[in-house]
């Protein structure tokens, strides 16, 4: 139960959702798009989210697709993580998504909701950053398709009234060797310390991280260091650590130094696991 009231709408089309948002904006009412809505509830409960209207996208057909279209695999933004896991069309995404929250919660948490979340982990974006996926966004200006690496800067850059509809990923990346590892403070449950996802395309290793900084990221500089085969592996990892964005998180889950210690080992695991450590 949330401590504030809002109007609830469940539009059946993209246009209806956009029109609703604009109509509320004209009346100076704050609206929020949701799909799973878990963050509305968990953050709203403690007054970290407030809205006057909720626009629930989960009935919109374009947001529910999960299919191959030509050479691309398309995921709708309102698919639950459980549905993505059970179907398992993109194994790296399955593995990364399966470490989010817990199984029951993943039946409510959606792909778009996780990628656009306020909570900084947003792990399900990692496979799409690695796979140079395309994102489809709609808003008052119509449909926009853009490479995710152009439009995801710490978070998905959405303008007012825009929302994520689909992500499309080239098959070549879906079939590539991958690794996804999540480290927690203790055992197999609890909040994440660091999540690393990696893909190997040819001889090149791609790495994306969540839980290290207050945003998920993929860094070309980090990857260039890891892929510099003129250096021994320890030097490659050292150079990669020197190229990390800042700040490094320092919180109850782990100090900055501890996170860097864990990451150093994770990067070794990734390079060895993908056969790139020689």
């Amino acid at each position, binding site marked *: 139960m*949330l401590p504030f*009231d*809002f109007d609830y709408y469940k539009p059946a089309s993209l246009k209806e959702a956009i029109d609703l948002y604009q109509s509320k904006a004209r009346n100076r009412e704050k609206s929020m798009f949701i799909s799973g809505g878990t963050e509305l509830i968990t953050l709203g*409960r403690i007054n970290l989210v407030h809205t006057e209207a909720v626009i629930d996208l989960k009935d919109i057909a374009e947001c529910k697709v999960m299919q191959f279209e030509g050479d691309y695999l398309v995921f709708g933004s309102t698919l639950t993580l459980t549905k993505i896991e059970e179907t398992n069309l993109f194994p790296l995404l399955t593995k990364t998504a*399966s470490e989010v*929250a817990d199984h*029951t*919660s993943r039946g*409510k948490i959606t792909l778009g909701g996780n990628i656009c979340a306020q909570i900084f982990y947003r792990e399900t974006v990692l496979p799409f950053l690695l796979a140079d996926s395309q994102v489809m966004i709609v808003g008052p200006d119509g449909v926009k398709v853009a490479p995710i690496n152009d439009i995801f800067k710490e978070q998905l850059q959405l303008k007012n009234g825009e929302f994520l509809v689909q992500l499309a990923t080239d098959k070549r990346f879906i079939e590539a060797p991958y690794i996804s590892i999540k480290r927690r403070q203790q055992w197999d449950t609890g909040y994440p310390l660091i999540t690393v996802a990696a893909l190997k395309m040819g001889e090149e290793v791609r790495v994306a991280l969540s839980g290290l900084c207050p945003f998920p990221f993929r860094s070309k500089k980090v990857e260039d260091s890891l892929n510099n085969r003129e250096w021994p592996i320890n030097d490659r990892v050292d150079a990669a650590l020197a190229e990390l964005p800042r700040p490094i998180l320092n919180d109850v889950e782990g100090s900055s130094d501890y996170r860097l210690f864990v990451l150093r080992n994770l990067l070794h695991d990734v390079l060895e696991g993908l056969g790139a450590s020689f």
Partner: protein
Amino acid sequence: MKTQIIDLHVNGNLRTVTVRSADTLLYAIRGKLGLTGAKPGCLNGDCGACTVNVDGWPMKSCLMLAIEAVGKNVTTIEGLKNTPIQQAFIENFAFQCGYCTPGFIMNCHSLILKHPDADDATIKEWLESNICRCTGYTEIEKAVKSVLEKN
């Protein structure tokens, strides 16, 4: 206060309730329908004490708005009658204080229906969604495995 009248399918019955859009399903089934089997715990989606079944899948009812449940089939612990997993919980002493029990049973019930041949990894993955503060995990595991083995 912004309220609306909605129809909920709960335990095979159509129930009409007046809710705020901001009311969770947990609040509605307990406070409006008097079905107090689903327990309020963390109210944050962490503990699983409020787990019910929505269209065959486990759902933490604190993470769902009542209004989102319109058109779906909701089953609470009160809707289960003499199921194998309930009997197995008794036979395996799979509870102590009992507060987490309805949530565990609803999750186990869904697991058995969705994955009647569930392996250890699947059982662990599903049951990590619930917390037992009495740490009765071994007995709960025995209970769910005893039903799966009968399958």
